[in-house]
């Protein structure tokens, strides 16, 4: 990456690093160790990476949704570039959520997985956007790819709250082992600072990643245009 010639990227990287250091400092050293089941040292600190990653991932998918609508309305291919960038970054962070979750759950609750609403929805979300990315691989022409992906991007996101509700209702009928205090448990306010700090840092990191991925699409388009010119 030509970071030397890209001040915004350097700025994002630097800010992200600093804020992450602060956020994790707060998460590890200031945030309280509670007596509740979930908060066992040091495993509970996974939570400060797990939850912010989930927020970032969700924001990424929301960006795909907005960019998809924008593409359909304006037909400007740059919206599609933003959509695929946000989708990839969203999937990366979603994978982090799915990895850190079970690693937290196993030592604390003794099980790797449970079909509670949030975990299941995260898994489905991961599969939906993985499908979105795979679809793009198999469509050659840029504008058709953008069109089809936009449609899937919109349908996928609309489905997410429905998936969540379905899982929530299912869980009331089929009680599952409770993880992380159930859906409605709140967080100790002192823990919020750690979560927010890490979230801010991860958000900036994600912005950097989206930006670089977007640049990749720009370069690819430039290459195609040049190749076309070379053939003329």
């Amino acid at each position, binding site marked *: *990456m*030509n970071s030397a010639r890209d001040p915004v990227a350097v700025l994002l990287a630097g800010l992200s690093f600093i804020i992450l250091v602060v956020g994790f400092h707060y998460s590890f050293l200031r945030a309280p160790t509670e007596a509740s089941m979930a908060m*066992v*040292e*040091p*495993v509970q*600190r*996974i939570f400060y*990476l*797990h939850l912010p*990653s989930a927020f970032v991932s969700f924001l990424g998918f929301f960006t795909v949704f907005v960019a998809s609508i924008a593409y359909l309305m304006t037909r400007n291919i740059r919206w599609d570039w933003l959509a695929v960038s946000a989708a*990839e*970054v969203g999937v*990366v962070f979603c*994978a*982090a959520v799915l*990895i*850190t979750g079970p*690693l*937290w759950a*196993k*030592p*604390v609750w003794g099980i790797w997985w449970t079909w509670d609403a949030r975990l299941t929805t995260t898994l489905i979300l991961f599969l939906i956007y993985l499908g979105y990315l795979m679809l793009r691989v198999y469509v050659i022409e840029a504008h058709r790819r953008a069109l089809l992906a936009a449609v899937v991007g919109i349908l996928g996101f609309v489905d997410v709250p429905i998936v969540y509700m379905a899982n929530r209702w299912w869980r009331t009928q089929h009680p599952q082992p409770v993880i992380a205090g159930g859906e409605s448990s709140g967080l100790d306010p002192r823990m919020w600072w750690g979560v927010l700090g890490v979230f801010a840092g991860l958000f900036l*990191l994600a912005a*950097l*990643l989206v930006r*670089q*991925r977007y*640049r*990749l699409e720009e*370069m*690819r388009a*430039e*290459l195609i245009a*040049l*190749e076309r*010119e*070379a*053939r003329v």
Partner: protein
Amino acid sequence: MPIGLKHFLIAYVLAWALFFGYLVNLALRQKSLADELRALKDRLSRPDRASGPQG
């Protein structure tokens, strides 16, 4: 006695490996595209030699 120290370390290592792995992956892809672009631009700017109806 730290509970789940192993899990804690693995979780953080894996997650950060994922983020940085993706960053590196992007950098590599960018580099290869940049190289292709430069090569193509060089070829185009040079006076046309092997002209004709080929790619």
